[in-house]
């Protein structure tokens, strides 16, 4: 047993070390698939999974309609004892919405969902974690990886964040020093815009050859609605209203079991209008006559938001570095036209384990990933998402061409960094019309309530601003502080104080969506993990 070396240490002032063959950061689909596959291939290897959420699934938010083929590969008998809230997609609709109407569109071939399953990715991950624990994977929910351990230019583990530190950074009586996890190989499976992945991509220049990553912000709520309104298994997608033609995005309604429906909207973070507020647009979407008719009189059970990577093939960073791999949405493996990434995350996780066990090394993983189904799939659809930068109509025509030609265009459209396309905030006239909006949550603080956010108040602010003068100076003048609008739970507020206007950070409202880290026009916001176990407590999202 590789952990025996630490068993006798009890001095609390000494930082303890645990040693594993493989350390995985993040108990999402890719990280758990990697852990499970590794144990299936070689039960003698030790593997641990660190998860910053209080439980597995607490920080997971996704549509999600998933392709099941990778699940068949990983758990051949999963259909006999399927994860909870998992139903087969049996009908689908694609709608073009206007302010008051809806026009049924033909379903694009990538969006056909026959045989796919509507799941709660949070429940799926909790279920996967149980399977992993049976294989003796050690999963540590409530422990955030705060730093990467690097020796001689090689990643050799992570440092877990400490507990019991007060706002000013001093140790409280309950202080407990985070441990070091040393591992032969480290797998970063943090999800979109992982804070360690971000640093490592920068440090090793992994994004040097590709385009900048592009992102979207997805909102999702789970509602329980009166009997008789839903058709379990129905998958509905929409484009159009309330987004204008220059803003990429779309809505979804997934009819689940137990009178529950998942409602959501994904918005491209390359929107350029500074006055844009993603939260208000999502609220507006819920009040479209078609959506409202489903939700009215129901109860919202849980809700939240999370950024997702939309850059695709041309933005995929090099997924390997000395001692470590990057998998899942931490790298960006979402197939945008399919609106699916979970299957690729699972595949990448399995491939990472197979590569490590097969070669005893991480080198060569990137080439293998690009050469496998994940790479092929992403390459084929690479031009579709960037086409929407020229507006909805151009984007749809381009998507038609790319689909018809099977992605064989000799060109590749480029991606731009989302933060670089923020324009100055325009006066609110002409933005979102002030429609009747009475469905909860009524404001962004209420969304934090439905996300069941919990943070210890007395801890350092985990949204670090590198240059606070920028907020009250240039950003205020040029952009009117977009952070006060793009954050789905209003973490950032400009408040008038005696000394003048200042930025107030309500860090305890943060749902860890990472929108600020991505969209801040000056790239001076660094999201770092708060005390382990803090953050949203999503249920069945």
């Amino acid at each position, binding site marked *: 047993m590789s952990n025996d070396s630490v068993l006798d240490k009890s001095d609390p002032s000494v930082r303890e070390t645990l040693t594993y063959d493989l350390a995985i950061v993040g108990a999402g689909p890719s990280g758990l698939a990697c852990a499970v596959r590794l144990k299936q291939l070689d039960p003698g290897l030790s593997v641990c999974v660190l998860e910053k959420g209080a439980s597995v699934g607490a920080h997971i938010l996704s549509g999600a309609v998933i392709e099941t083929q990778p699940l068949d590969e990983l758990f051949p008998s999963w259909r006999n004892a399927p994860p909870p*809230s998992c139903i087969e997609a049996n009908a689908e609709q694609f709608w073009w919405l206007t302010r008051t109407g809806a026009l049924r569109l033909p379903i694009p071939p990538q969006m056909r969902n026959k045989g796919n399953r509507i799941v709660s990715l*949070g429940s799926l991950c909790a279920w996967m974690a149980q399977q992993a624990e049976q294989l003796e994977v050690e999963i540590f929910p409530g422990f955030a990886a705060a730093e990467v351990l690097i020796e001689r230019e090689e990643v050799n583990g992570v440092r877990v964040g400490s507990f019991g530190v007060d706002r000013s950074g001093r140790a409280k009586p*309950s202080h407990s020093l985070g441990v070091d996890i040393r591992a032969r190989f480290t797998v970063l499976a943090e999800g979109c815009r992982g804070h360690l992945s971000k640093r490592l991509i920068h440090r090793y220049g992994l994004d040097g050859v590709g385009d900048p990553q592009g992102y979207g912000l997805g909102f999702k709520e789970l509602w329980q609605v009166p009997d008789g309104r839903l058709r379990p298994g129905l998958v509905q997608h929409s484009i159009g209203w309330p987004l204008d033609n220059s803003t990429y995005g779309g809505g979804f309604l997934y009819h689940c079991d137990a009178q529950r429906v998942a409602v959501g909207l994904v918005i491209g973070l390359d929107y350029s209008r500074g006055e844009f507020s993603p939260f208000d647009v999502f609220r507006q979407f819920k009040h479209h006559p078609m959506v409202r008719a489903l939700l009215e009189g129901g109860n919202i059970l849980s809700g939240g938001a999370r950024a997702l990577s939309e850059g695709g093939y041309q933005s995929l960073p090099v997924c390997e570095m000395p001692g470590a791999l990057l998998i899942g949405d931490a790298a960006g493996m979402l197939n945008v036209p399919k609106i699916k990434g979970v299957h690729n995350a699972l595949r990448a996780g399995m491939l990472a384990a197979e590569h490590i066990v097969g070669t005893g090394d991480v080198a060569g993983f990137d080439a293998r990933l690009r050469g496998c189904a994940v790479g092929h799939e992403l390459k084929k659809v690479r031009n579709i998402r960037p086409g929407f930068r020229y507006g909805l109509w151009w984007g749809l025509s381009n998507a038609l061409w790319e689909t018809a030609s099977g992605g064989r265009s000799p060109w590749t459209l480029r991606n731009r960094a989302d933060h670089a396309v923020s324009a100055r905030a325009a006066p609110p006239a002409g933005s979102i019309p002030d429609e009747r909006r009475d469905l909860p949550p009524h404001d962004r603080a209420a969304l934090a309530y439905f996300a*069941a956010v919990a943070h210890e108040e007395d801890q350092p602010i985990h949204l670090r601003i590198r240059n606070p003068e920028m907020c009250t100076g240039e950003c205020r003048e040029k952009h009117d502080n977009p952070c006060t609008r793009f954050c789905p739970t209003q973490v950032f507020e400009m408040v008038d104080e005696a000394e003048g206007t200042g930025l107030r950070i309500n860090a305890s409202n943060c749902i860890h969506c990472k929108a600020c880290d991505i969209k801040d026009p000056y790239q001076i916001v660094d999201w770092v993990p708060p005390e382990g176990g803090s953050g949203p407590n999503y249920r069945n999202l």
Partner: protein
Amino acid sequence: MKILVAAKRVVDPNLRVQVKPDASGIVTEGAGMSVNPFDEIALEEALRLRERGHAAEVVVVSIGPTQSRQQLRTCLAMGADRAILVETEVSLQPLGVSRALLRLVERERPTLVLLGKQSIDDESSQTAQMLAALWGRPQATSVSEVLIEGSCVRVTREVDAGMEVLELDLPAVISADLRLNEPRFVKLPDIVRAKRKPLDIHSLDELAIEGGNHPRHVHYSSPPARKRQIMVEDVPALLRSMRERGVIT
């Protein structure tokens, strides 16, 4: 001396509790579960008594479904020496729980039994009292300070009029209030170590607990939604508004 701590598996206190649509109970699907926070405080106190040299062993016990092992592992990772699970799929009421605890008390012969003053789910606040009565030993509830003095224990309780200090002969039953202490953070290496600590499992039948007549839950519902707040300009407006609503005359 040996301390027995009782710990209940409950829905994580940070979650929003949801009532089932048919009003038959609380939705636990997809809910994170944790150790009842008051029981965690009781355990922390037991660990501190052991660290101060008053106790040689801390045994933690839970009565509940098989998944309660998870919470017992957390207690072991906090520092309990060993754990006992009385496995049952039936939801026991306080009387059944105290009867089961009594059986374990007879077997384990602890000098002190520490429990939370109530569980955050049912909030009955009865188990400690019933156990003390069945066992025929002194009890102190909602305790915010515990001092062992030879064969006695001196405890402080918060009561309406202020502080009440009681002296109890040991063995005794004590239930913990929120202010007793702040439980420690579980350390990651201790979670690994806890996997090797003993966890004994008994069935309810093995303990020969009588069923008895339990209260039946008839209906669950969410509290009525709070009305939207209004902001008033100044004090006269506040008074006017309160008068309109009949709050004052």
